[in-house]
């Protein structure tokens, strides 16, 4: 039962109602606004030259610009009682799943008020209130997702787990072990593979033996679908069915979305290996979707501006909170090793 969804026949023919479509746009804009703000402050004081360990936001920074449709489309079907495990590039899913922006920003800025009191950083965001977690190790967020799903079912609920990886992770053992076990035990998991075409600098064609990772899902007995376009509504539709299957106790589904890494693998990546750079801006999903909604009469310029302004206000509040928060006390570096 592997299918490739070729996108909708015409963008005007949507199965979604107007408020839902505008809501998806709003989520995508909020994510993009957040990523742009982090990018701005990341580079604000890295100089002279570029010192990765320096500045307000030190360390590696993997931003998700271009991948907003995946998070917005999937998380629209979740409540805060459902769980999400994400990757080293986690911000879009964290925001779409409803993470508090202030605690999230504060963690990224390494502050005591952050989600992990500055112990985690941007690859290690843990939010019990939305059951969100992420891992910096490729594919290794899948196995804990199985356990959350196991617990949700064991506790007699219909809560589900969304487990996210990139297409590069689909070549890791943890990916395959997890698919088999989830299928075997019919766990309420939606596996999401974000195919942004690049494993850092290695293109999918040089890393992956199959054209679609949906094939791999099917090989484990899991209904799977590849969504060819970076289309938030196609993702929304596929995720609707996948989440419903999981809630109904029918087991896991795998969705691979062909998405877009709008920026580098991490900030500071000059992407000299990337031959498609000139074409990338035209593939940006947010202006595309804005055009679609505008043509459908759902989003005039004033409303779009209002959505943008609201996002900026929320993000800047969060960033200001982060910057004004205290750094952790070095004397407490050893706190929280054990409960």
């Amino acid at each position: 039962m592997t299918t490739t969804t070729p996108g909708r026949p015409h963008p005007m023919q949507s199965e979604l109602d107007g408020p839902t479509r505008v809501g998806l746009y709003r989520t995508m804009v909020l994510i993009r606004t957040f990523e742009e703000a982090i990018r701005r402050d990341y580079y604000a004081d890295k100089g002279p030259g570029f010192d990765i360990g320096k500045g307000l936001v030190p360390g590696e920074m993997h931003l998700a610009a271009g991948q907003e449709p995946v998070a917005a489309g999937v998380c629209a079907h979740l409540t805060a009682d459902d769980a999400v495990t994400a990757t080293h590039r986690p911000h879009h899913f964290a925001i779409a799943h409803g993470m508090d922006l202030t605690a999230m920003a504060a963690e990224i800025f390494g502050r005591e008020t952050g989600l992990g009191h500055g112990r985690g950083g941007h690859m290690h965001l843990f939010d019990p209130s939305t059951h969100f977690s992420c891992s910096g190790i490729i594919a290794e967020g899948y196995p804990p997702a199985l356990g959350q799903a196991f617990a949700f079912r064991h506790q007699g609920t219909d809560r589900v787990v969304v487990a996210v990886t990139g297409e590069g992770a689909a070549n890791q053992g943890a990916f395959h072990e997890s698919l088999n076990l989830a299928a075997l035990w019919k766990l309420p998991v939606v596996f999401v593979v974000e195919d942004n075409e690049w494993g850092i600098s290695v293109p999918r064609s040089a890393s992956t033996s199959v054209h679609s990772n949906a094939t791999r899902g099917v090989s484990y007995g899991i209904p799977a679908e590849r969504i060819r376009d970076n289309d938030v509504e196609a993702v929304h539709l596929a995720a609707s069915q996948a989440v419903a299957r999981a809630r109904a106790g029918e087991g896991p589904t795998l969705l691979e979305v062909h998405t877009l890494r709008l920026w580098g693998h991490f900030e500071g990546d000059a992407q000299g290996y990337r031959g498609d750079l000139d074409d990338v801006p035209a593939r940006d999903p947010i202006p595309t979707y804005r055009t679609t909604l505008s043509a459908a009469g759902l989003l005039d310029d004033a409303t779009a501006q209002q959505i943008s302004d609201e996002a900026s206000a929320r993000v800047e509040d969060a960033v200001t909170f982060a910057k004004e928060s205290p750094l952790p006390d070095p004397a407490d570096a050893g706190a929280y090793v054990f409960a």
Partner: protein
Amino acid sequence: MTIIEQPVDTAPQSSHRLTTSKAMVEGIEIEMARDPSVIYLGEDVGAYGGIFSSTAGLLDRFGPERVLDTPISETAFIGLGIGAAVEGMRPVVELMFADFMGVCLDQIYNHMAKIHYESGGNVRVPMVLTTAVGGGYSDGAQHSQCLWGTFAHLPGMKVVVPSNPYDAKGLMIAAIRDDNPVVYMFHKGVMGLPWMVKNARATADVPEGEYTVPIGEAKVVRPGSDVTVVTLSLSVHHTLDVAETLAADGIDVEVIDLRSLVPLDRETILRSVGKTGHLVVVDEDYQSFGLSGEIAATITDVDPGMLRAPVARVANPDTPIPYSHPLEYAILPRQDRIEAAIRRTVSR
């Protein structure tokens, strides 16, 4: 192999004789009966009852919803334990041999052990990772290692290593109730298995009902005045054998069973060496960069003047564990090497 059924709330006044493996199972059984969030999963833990009898009888009592045979997918099912623990369960997950850590270490040290820290204390991972360790029965280099020094080196997980039936039960109950990940390492040679050579102390009186052995407390299992031997697991029994021999020669050996590596009970070690002035460490794990060096540093960090002779280490001399019996016994810390080290130390 039948489990001796016990009412859960029996006060621990009366006792019964159990092997270490049956005592371990009794601890699990008490907690599973008391707390429905406790489950046990791993390879061959169901109908087989655990390759080393770590789960004998549990499937019959608690059923396949709570005693789960897994595929041979250690990364997936250890990770499953982590996620279940995060969501309020108390899973006990078995890694059949500690030697298999290589296929799943990322879930153990990057996830199980770090989530609490990375979350700033907001997410707890109350799970137990049980695993069989140790050699002495010609299982070769990939099925005989102890590796507790490796687990203990990596921050964020407690590590317990019972050597006898009483501690096996009490540490298991304590581990399941602990809000941290606890690695519970049982040596095949202490389990009292009918198909492997047994030490004389592998069957002993164990209190009925529930009790805990506090994690992080070593035990002086034989008081003595001339030399301190710090050891753990099967080596405790070899050392006790030697201590009895040496008593006849007027050498009075104090034997400390560490029982926990993380946290390490440094106070008990310091108190003993402060008394005897002589320290021998017996460790079946690899010698370099491991437990024996850590025990020596426990003294020298505080007061090297406590020592009236250099510290002696009896450990695996950094060699893969050989298959052939005489080769294996040459590298394991057996009675002959322990006795020689003690005699050498007290004579200096």
